[in-house]
């Protein structure tokens, strides 16, 4: 088991997958409001659509640690509570808190394990779970006398040698539940060598009826349907319609039911010069929607692979009263609109359409009309309009599919950014990801001078909004009043001839201004009481709350005031003398129902913070001391929500001159400081301010850039996230009628007012549209530009398209080119469209140049290479394939194009191309030359005048080279199927010698060298692994000399002489497309960042000490039993899906600790001999040290 590894990694998800495999609609909250539940990867997410804002909010997200295969919502008869059944490969179960769990398979996603299809009777009486072949299980759902949900043992409806293409439940009102399946029996074709039986195979629509009385499932009806059919849709039954199903195949939609005639309608095609008139469309997704009120009012929206939505309605015969009888008369089809190709469509009652795109951003549309009254031709419509019937509303960002990802710091900020290429077709994008919170700027205005500080204050205690903005300059103070406009006021009683140290609304209706020479107490009737600082001394630091004031004098004394019963400030008789100069002070808020805050925090320049008591019995007595690494620059005592205690806890936030921020827990009784957490903010001294964001108290920490400390709305864990905003010198809370929860800040000579709208999302995305599906990208070695290769299969290239459009024989008047973002590109089998784009993600934020490839070539790989023969000039090298066929792999030729950079990389110029036998799938710069993987061969090329010159070649892998990495003269070659092989290059002999390979077949998708001996990589089945070369083999390979000993070494089991050792293995489910060793936060540790196809971003953090490993291993073990995954999948089995998990601790599971109920937390803490707080600190530390 895992314990034997010498290397341990901690796996964390930075961003969960954004691909939606399925989305369903239901009223899960028990109210009328409809919610959307989506399944993405192993995560189940509940979204709440907000129709008023046209937004989708995430209400809850849960990692089930299993592969969610299908989900369905159902409602039990007689109950008005919506419930959800989640089906993973093992279980069927209910809701986010588990109501029921049934196991129906234990060996993962396999051919005969049910779970591929799930259908629930519309009345919620039964569900059918089917596998791709043979097995079908029917569960009867019921309620027992306690109104709890019960689930029967399964009834079998197996049929051997039968494949299922689609499955739906029939709407039969309250008669016995019926399920319809689209099946093919291959039994005969397997026995017939002539192939005739295969030719004659029929696809049948089969009805399975569950007889509730007999508790038995029968195959009730079977009838052949269109051979190409792949998808079924339920037609409403009972009062609402004729019941039955729509069977959708290539080019047709057919209505079928056991007691009705079949009705068939063709799917309209697009017309145009670039359209192949013979190309048949098929339906790939759809939704049925019942309209409220009228019986029989329902329609379907069915989508073709082009993204076109068609509205299908069924016309029924009417009786004398004009009510529908349930007898179908005809089927109508009509073009409705074009939206991205979806995996699920949901129509909300509030008139919205949620499109869960299979690739790219998910969209949220609002229906304008249902297309009943437009000019669209019904039935055999082949005209094609461009005007959309629905206005567009904001989309939900999705990084799916993520094709490649790189971390780079192009903006010279403290932390690097993540750059990625995502999406398919015309909707593909180049995305920049930055850690930070979105800031909404409200006002930015220039001031006459450079202010040093700013405050806002209200006039009386009961005011809701602030009335004044007070600005302090070096020797003046300016007061602005907030109203319709912001203007200067002079008669406020504030001293304007000196700078200000603090401003506070005191007591009922007083105001306080602390300036270096004293304290001004301004009463409501403009009377001013002034307390002057003792002679030859001035005030250096001040802190206030609505009843107390404390100031520190230049002599190191602290003077304390408290408001007395008649609203005047009373000085406490004694002054407290501190040892050093006081740099900062802080008083907490007065707790509700109390007259004072009990603690005063004092920061001195001897790098200490002291807590003084303000209790009347022990005023200004020392309570506790904390030593720091540098002098404190700011202090703030505040109560914040806390996940460990469940309620709110008093914290002391400390900012240091070194730019470090500390947060410690302040004991409310003893004043003890404990549980210190540190974080480096930036090189400037940290300043701290109490602000209010989204109804919670948060801390605004300013250093070289602004940060916000808040508790996460979902997990309640403390988060510290930078704001996407320029660096501020000062900040304060701001509240006015226009902006109730804002902040005001000073940046240079500017006054800025801003607010933060969203705390849930701490990764900011920016995207640049691309032309075709991006395949790979590289960065210019010196300049901040990226180069992508994009290619699209089965799409006409621009040249072919232009030729077709020019052909006068084809053009027939309406040759309008449809925008490809909505409608996709014109398609043509066997055609490729491909291009190289230059992207500037920093200044222009757009594609600078696009180079199209012609002759049906498509780019497959790229690299920037500096050629030693050209005085180390850097060239862009792109590998292409001509007439490629994806499966089985074929092509007529491959080429390597060479491009020269111009204008610092803003432009590229084609130099020449070299023909090779196969498309080169991997290219890499290597010792001033080009390393290329062509088929099984590894080659070294040098740059010539007319073409590339081959210098060396060896066959190194059994199938196909797909990736190359290098360090020194060692090359890591990944094979499409056979894991990685390490090759050494002997310069003198000009020989490439493979010396170590792997024992297991790994369908490598990406690799990176972690160190000289170790390779980290991912494979197409969704595994992550680390392999290490044995020390002896590594040393032998690098021995001086000819390498003859390597060449003549005996092969081991027909492979290389040595084998790689597996160091770590983990199953994260998503397919890793890119992996690299990087550092994500300023001053953070190196970690491995991997990016998954479905948009997952995850990291592997190496453990430094054995002690931490033991701790997290035990914690993980406890979490497995205490917080068993929701879907019932055993966590250890899930993470060991293909290969037993080794050397990796699942951080996502460990982080669920903070979400456990307090008693369970304490139990686990007891087992681990630590406090709850300590465990939570360890969990949050390991994340913040290397990621967000």
């Amino acid at each position: 088991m895992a314990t034997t590894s010498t290397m341990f990694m901690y796996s964390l998800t930075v961003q969960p997958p954004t691909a939606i495999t399925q989305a369903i609609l239901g009223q899960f909250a028990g109210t009328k409001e409809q919610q959307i539940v989506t399944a993405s990867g192993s995560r189940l997410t509940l979204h709440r659509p907000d129709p008023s804002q046209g937004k989708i909010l995430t209400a809850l997200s849960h990692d089930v640690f299993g592969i969610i295969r299908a989900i369905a919502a159902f409602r039990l008869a007689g109950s008005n509570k919506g419930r959800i059944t989640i089906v993973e490969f093992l279980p069927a179960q209910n809701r986010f808190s588990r109501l029921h769990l049934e196991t129906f398979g234990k060996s993962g996603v396999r051919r005969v394990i049910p779970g591929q299809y799930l259908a629930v009777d519309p009345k919620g009486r039964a569900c059918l779970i089917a596998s791709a072949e043979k097995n079908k299980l029917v569960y009867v759902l019921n309620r027992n006398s306690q109104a709890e949900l019960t689930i029967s043992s399964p009834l079998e409806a197996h049929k051997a040698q039968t494949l299922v293409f689609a499955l739906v439940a029939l709407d039969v009102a309250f008669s016995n539940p019926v399920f319809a399946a689209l099946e093919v029996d291959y039994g005969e074709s397997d026995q017939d060598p002539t192939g005739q039986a295969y030719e004659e195979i029929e696809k049948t629509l089969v009805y399975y009826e569950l007889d509730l009385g007999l508790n038995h499932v029968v195959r009730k009806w079977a009838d052949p349907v269109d051979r190409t059919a792949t998808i079924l849709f339920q037609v409403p039954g009972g009062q609402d319609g004729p019941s039955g199903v729509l069977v959708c195949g290539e080019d047709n939609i057919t209505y079928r039911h056991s007691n009705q005639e079949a009705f068939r309608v063709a799917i309209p095609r697009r017309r145009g010069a670039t359209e192949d008139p013979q190309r048949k469309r098929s339906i790939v997704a759809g939704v049925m929607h019942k309209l409220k009120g009228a019986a029989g009012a329902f329609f379907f929206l069915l989508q073709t692979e082009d993204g076109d939505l068609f509205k299908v309605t069924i016309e029924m015969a009417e009786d004398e009263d004009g009510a529908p009888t349930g007898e179908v008369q005809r089927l109508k089809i009509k073009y409705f609109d074009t939206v991205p190709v979806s995996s699920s469509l949901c129509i909300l009652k509030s008139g919205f359409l949620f499109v869960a795109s299979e690739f790219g951003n998910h969209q949220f549309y609002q229906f304008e009309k249902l297309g009943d009254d437009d000019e669209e031709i019904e039935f055999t419509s082949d005209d094609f309009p461009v005007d959309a019937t629905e206005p567009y509303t904001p989309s939900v960002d999705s990084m799916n599919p993520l094709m490649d990802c790189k971390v780079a710091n192009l903006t010279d900020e403290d932390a690097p950014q993540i750059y990625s290429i995502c999406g398919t077709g015309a909707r593909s994008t180049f995305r920049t990801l930055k850690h930070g919170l979105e800031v909404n700027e409200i006002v930015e205005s220039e001031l006459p001078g450079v202010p040093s500080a700013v405050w806002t204050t209200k006039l009386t205690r009961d005011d809701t909004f602030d009335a004044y903005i007070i600005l302090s300059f070096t020797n003046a103070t300016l007061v602005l009043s907030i109203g319709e406009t912001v203007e200067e006021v002079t008669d406020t009683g504030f001293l304007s001839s000196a700078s200000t140290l603090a401003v506070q609304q005191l007591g009922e209706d007083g105001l306080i201004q602390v300036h270096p020479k004293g304290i001004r107490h301004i009463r409501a009737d403009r009377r001013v009481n002034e307390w002057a600082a003792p002679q030859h001394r001035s005030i250096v630091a001040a802190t206030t709350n609505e009843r107390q004031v404390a100031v520190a004098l230049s002599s190191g004394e602290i003077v304390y005031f408290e408001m007395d019963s008649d609203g005047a400030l009373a000085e406490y008789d004694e002054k407290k003398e501190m040892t050093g100069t006081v740099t900062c002070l802080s008083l907490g808020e007065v707790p509700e129902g109390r007259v004072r805050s009990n603690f005063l925090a004092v920061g001195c320049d001897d790098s200490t913070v002291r807590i003084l008591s303000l209790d009347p019995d022990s005023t200004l007595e020392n309570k506790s001391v904390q030593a720091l690494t540098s002098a404190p620059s700011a202090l703030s005592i505040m109560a914040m929500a806390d996940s460990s205690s469940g309620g709110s806890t008093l914290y002391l936030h400390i900012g240091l001159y070194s730019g470090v921020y500390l947060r410690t827990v302040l004991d409310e009784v003893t004043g003890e400081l404990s549980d210190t957490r540190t974080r480096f903010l930036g090189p400037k001294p940290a300043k701290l301010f109490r602000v209010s964001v989204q109804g919670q108290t948060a801390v605004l920490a300013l250093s070289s850039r602004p940060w916000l400390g808040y508790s996460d709305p979902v997990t309640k864990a403390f988060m510290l996230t930078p704001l996407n905003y320029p660096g501020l010198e000062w900040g304060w809370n701001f509240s006015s009628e226009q902006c109730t929860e804002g902040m005001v800040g000073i940046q240079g000579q500017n006054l800025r007012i801003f607010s933060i709208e969203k705390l849930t999302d701490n990764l900011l995305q920016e995207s640049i549209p691309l032309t075709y599906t991006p395949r790979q990208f590289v960065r210019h070695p010196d300049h901040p530009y990226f180069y992508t290769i994009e290619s699209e299969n089965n799409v006409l290239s621009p040249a072919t398209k232009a030729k077709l459009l020019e052909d006068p024989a084809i053009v027939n008047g309406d040759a309008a080119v449809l925008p490809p973002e909505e409608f996709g590109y014109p398609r043509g089998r066997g055609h490729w469209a491909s291009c190289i784009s230059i992207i500037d993600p920093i200044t222009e934020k757009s594609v600078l140049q696009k180079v199209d490839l012609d002759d049906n070539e498509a780019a497959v790989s790229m690299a920037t290479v500096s050629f030693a023969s050209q005085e180390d000039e850097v060239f862009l090298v792109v590998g292409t394939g001509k007439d490629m066929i994806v499966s089985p792999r074929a092509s007529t030729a491959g080429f390597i194009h060479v491009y020269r950079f111009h204008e610092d990389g803003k432009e590229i110029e084609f130099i020449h191309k070299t023909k090779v036998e196969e498309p080169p799938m991997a290219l890499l710069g290597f010792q001033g030359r080009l390393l290329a993987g062509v088929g099984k061969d590894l080659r070294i090329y040098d740059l010539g005048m007319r073409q590339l010159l081959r210098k060396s070649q060896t066959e190194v892998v059994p199938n196909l080279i797909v990736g190359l990495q290098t360090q020194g003269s060692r090359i890591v070659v990944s094979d499409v199927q056979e894991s990685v092989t390490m090759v050494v290059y002997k310069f003198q002999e000009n020989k490439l010698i493979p010396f170590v390979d792997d024992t297991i077949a790994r369908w490598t998708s990406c690799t990176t060298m972690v160190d000289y001996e170790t390779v980290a990589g991912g494979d197409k089945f969704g595994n992550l692994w680390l392999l290490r070369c044995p020390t002896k083999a590594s040393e032998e390979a690098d021995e001086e000399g000819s390498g003859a000993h390597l060449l003549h070494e005996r092969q081991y089991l027909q492979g290389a002489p040595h084998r790689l050792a597996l160091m770590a293995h983990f199953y994260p489910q998503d397919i890793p497309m890119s992996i690299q060793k990087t550092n994500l936060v300023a001053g953070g540790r190196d970690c491995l960042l991997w990016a998954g196809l479905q948009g997952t971003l995850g990291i592997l953090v190496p453990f430094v000490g054995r002690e931490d490993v033991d701790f997290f291993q035990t914690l993980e073990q406890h979490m497995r039993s205490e917080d068993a995954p929701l879907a019932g999948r055993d966590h250890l089995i899930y993470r060991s899906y293909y290969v037993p998990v080794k050397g990796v601790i699942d951080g996502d599971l460990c982080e669920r600790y903070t979400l456990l109920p307090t008693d369970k937390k304490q139990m686990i803490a007891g087992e681990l001999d630590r406090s709850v707080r300590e465990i939570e600190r360890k969990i949050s530390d390991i994340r913040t040290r290397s990621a967000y």
Partner: protein
Amino acid sequence: MADKLRAQQQLEQLQARYVGTGHADTTKFEWSSNIQRDSYASYVGHPPLLSYMAIGMGECREKVRGAMIEKMIQPVGKPPEVQD
């Protein structure tokens, strides 16, 4: 003899229950068909894998899914002639 019979019966039971259980006379065709069908079912059953293939082929997922199940009908071509 009885033992042999029982073993035979048990094997037959297993074969009926678990698709793909082999026997002494499993032909190359049966074995490879079975492996291929398992593979296709796995491609269809794992959402990321299906997406990966759909992107590679330049098709949409639903079409690829349909095509994969279609291929499960006769994954390795016609069965060989039976020679007696």
